[in-house]
């Protein structure tokens, strides 16, 4: 297990190593010249501003929706709680596509921030809602008995305990903001990722693109550092069986109810209504003739094949790392695990650029092969598989493997028959996440996949760049339809883990 985990982690470090290596190759002066120029400043301001605005807004929205659906007596809160997670079923660039379709003039910072918030706030909402469900209501009773008003109880007892899910969600959103290409390209808002893509598509000056990638890497590392510093010594709470106690619901009153409902109605209209209305409109405009099944079916099957292979390989690669992180002694497991999170935080474009150059220069036979694009998926999406796999392995007691060995199973078979069997639901959830991510992955697929590969996302992208929105619509619809069941799984999983 250890060699496998080391190998996986070493492979995932290739892209970062590559960025550093290029920086050295480029030399100090050229690097400075490429870095210290007004355009980089512009991009830096844009990118940082985006994070500084979109992340807090998403947090406020996510916590508000979580509280309303879990702790208030809002009418229809069960339905709202599902609708709150539903925007995740719409890939971010389809959100962008829908908004540009609805309001063609929409562009720039506020548009980018708005749509990003709508696409990503569930990343805060889901874990926050789960944590709210898990909190022991007795603590709030005690706080009340000590003379705190309900607002004070929320601020001093509830909110501090939501710190970890909020931080986790905020980090996830910030990393997505750094990596997202399609959404911001459609909304004409330049970030480092879109700019790298531009350079890549211009008379590509490799050092320039790589220096920008380097800045992006630094931003990612900065975010990870801020997050871990803010988190302090607190660990992400191990998700236990939770309290069976029914929580008391906060009475909103007519005014509160009105405010809460308005918020949710507006949010749902923006985050779900707009995408669905636009997609519906394009679909109706295109009519049945627009569903060119001879084109769509092969693309659909290729996407399924890539996503399935990507999901399985990523889960397999995550296995030794997760196992070591849970069972291993000492720091090594944690260090290896950390490596994978760092690389997973990198945008697809950085990883794609690295793998293109490495395969062309070092392992030519692997260039533009299925292997390389799958490798990119593994590197990009390993953390998604790792998180749930790790949690589920942690729930399988190690004694079970010992017992199986004492009953004549080889260590590998014991691991496989017992721990892996018990971790299977978690592995499946992780694999589903990776599957979904591959389905909507754009940049790495465009750059790395074998010639002739067309996925739903790349075809959709190619058609939108020919501004054939009508013909692009079926691909967006299929991506959304594929995402719906997986989003449902995520939603159910987040509730089950929370102990209900």
């Amino acid at each position: 297990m250890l060699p496998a985990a080391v190998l996986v982690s070493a492979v995932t470090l290739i892209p970062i190593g590559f960025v550093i290596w290029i920086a050295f190759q480029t030399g100090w002066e050229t690097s400075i010249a490429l870095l210290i120029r007004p355009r980089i400043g512009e991009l830096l301001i844009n990118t940082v501003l985006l994070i500084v605005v979109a992340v807090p807004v998403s947090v406020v929205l996510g916590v508000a929706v979580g509280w309303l659906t879990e702790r208030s007596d809002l009418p229809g809160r069960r339905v709202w709680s599902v609708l709150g997670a539903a925007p995740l079923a719409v890939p971010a660039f389809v959100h962008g596509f829908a908004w540009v379709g609805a309001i063609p003039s929409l562009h720039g910072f506020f548009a980018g921030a708005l749509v990003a918030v709508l696409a990503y706030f569930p990343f805060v909402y889901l874990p926050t809602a789960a944590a709210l469900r898990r909190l022991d209501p007795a603590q709030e009773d005690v706080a009340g008995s000590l003379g705190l008003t309900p607002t004070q109880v929320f601020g001093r007892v509830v909110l501090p305990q939501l710190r970890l899910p909020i931080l986790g969600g905020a980090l996830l959103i910030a990393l997505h903001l750094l990596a997202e290409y399609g959404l911001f390209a459609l909304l004409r808002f330049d970030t480092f990722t879109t700019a790298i893509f531009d350079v890549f598509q211009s008379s590509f000056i490799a050092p320039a693109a790589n220096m920008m990638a380097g800045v992006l890497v630094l931003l990612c590392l900065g975010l990870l550092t801020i997050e871990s510093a803010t988190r302090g010594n607190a660990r992400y709470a191990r998700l236990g069986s939770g309290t069976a106690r029914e929580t008391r619901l906060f009475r909103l009153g007519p005014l509160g109810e009105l405010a809460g409902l308005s918020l949710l109605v507006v949010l749902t209209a923006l985050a779900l209504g707009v995408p669905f209305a636009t997609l519906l409109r394009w679909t109706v405009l295109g009519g049945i003739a627009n569903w060119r099944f001879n084109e769509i079916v092969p693309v659909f099957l290729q996407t399924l094949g890539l996503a399935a292979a990507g999901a399985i390989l990523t889960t397999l690669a995550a296995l030794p790392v997760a196992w070591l992180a849970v069972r291993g002694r000492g720091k090594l497991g944690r260090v290896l695990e950390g490596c994978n999170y760092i690389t997973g935080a990198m945008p697809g474009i950085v990883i794609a650029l690295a793998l293109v150059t490495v395969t062309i220069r070092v392992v030519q036979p692997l260039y533009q092969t299925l292997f390389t694009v799958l490798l990119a998926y593994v590197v990009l999406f390993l953390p998604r598989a790792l998180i749930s796999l790790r949690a589920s392995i942690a729930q399988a007691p190690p004694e079970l493997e010992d017992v199986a060995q004492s009953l004549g199973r080889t260590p590998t078979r014991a691991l496989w028959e017992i721990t892996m069997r018990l971790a299977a639901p978690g592995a499946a959830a992780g694999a589903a996440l990776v599957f979904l991510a591959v389905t909507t992955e754009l940049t790495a697929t465009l750059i790395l996949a074998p010639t002739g590969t067309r996925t739903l996302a790349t075809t959709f992208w190619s058609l939108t760049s020919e501004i054939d929105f009508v013909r692009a619509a079926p691909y967006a619809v299929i991506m959304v339809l594929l995402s719906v069941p997986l989003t449902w799984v995520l939603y159910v999983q987040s509730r089950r883990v929370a102990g209900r």
Partner: protein
Amino acid sequence: MSGLEIQAVSKSYGAVRAVAGVDLSIPAGQHTAIVGASGSGKTTLLRLIAGFEAPDAGRIVLNGVVLADAAGTMVPAHKRRVGYLPQDGALFPHLSVAANIGFGLEKGADRASRVGELAEMVALDRAMLARWPHELSGGQQQRVALARALAQRPKLILLDEPFSALDTGLRAATRKATIALLDAAGVTALLVTHDQAEALSFSEQIAVMRDGRVAQAGAPIDLYLRPRDSATATFLGDAIILPAMVNGGWATCALGSLAVDDAQRTGSARIMLRPEQVQIAESDSARVAGKVVDVEFVGHSCVLTVDLASSNGGQTVQVRSPVGPAPMVASPVRLRVAGPAHVLQD
């Protein structure tokens, strides 16, 4: 020889020597208990025997077959046929009771009937076979785990605090049933526990582990009455330990002059008495006088703390007195000592 032979076995994790040169042998068919505080290395020793870990040094031999030695022999766990019964049973939660019991059996026609036999053997109702582990009580789970371990007719069975998760009453009953079963099956057994009562009643031999070493091994009664040092003495039960001057089989201490079990030893030493050796004397003829300073009612008896008059308020001993009209605090009592005191080595 047949049985388990452990010779100079060591195992370190980094700088920590978890097991530091243990020698121990268990004759075939016999039961041995290893007791020790947590961190004493007893679980590591068990894992070395089971084959989950490889020793850094030393030899482990089972029925004449070398399982592990310094020359690099390392029979993997799954080839040792050593049964393992961990804490709270560790039943596979994704398998039914029948599948749990049959886990180590070859797939074949007689598997179902063998599972039935095993269930019967551990007095498990056959109706339970279709159930899931979480539907069983703690005691039932433990019996399933035992049946599962016995299924492959192990040459040795290792029990790692298997009864600790059970309630007090159930624990004793399960222990008894387990001993009977192991005896019937004629299996060599090694029990790891931190519960001295469990260890004393389980086995023909006890090994007390401390700091990765076997501090003392022997028959339960020997260890109980004649521990080598005060740590072992107090670990195996309540003990009254007093400084004394020893000479010619007699010790002079705060309890007066007592017969000791060591005629050779001379000079100052520490002696040990078990509390049940010291009783409240009905008659005034008993020699030792003292004053009750504390009375604690613990259900089946009272524990009196008695300040010995001879020590001028320096030495107290705890004495058990039957429930009934116990002496009041501050009342004078006289004490009587039964049997010889034991001279400790430290």
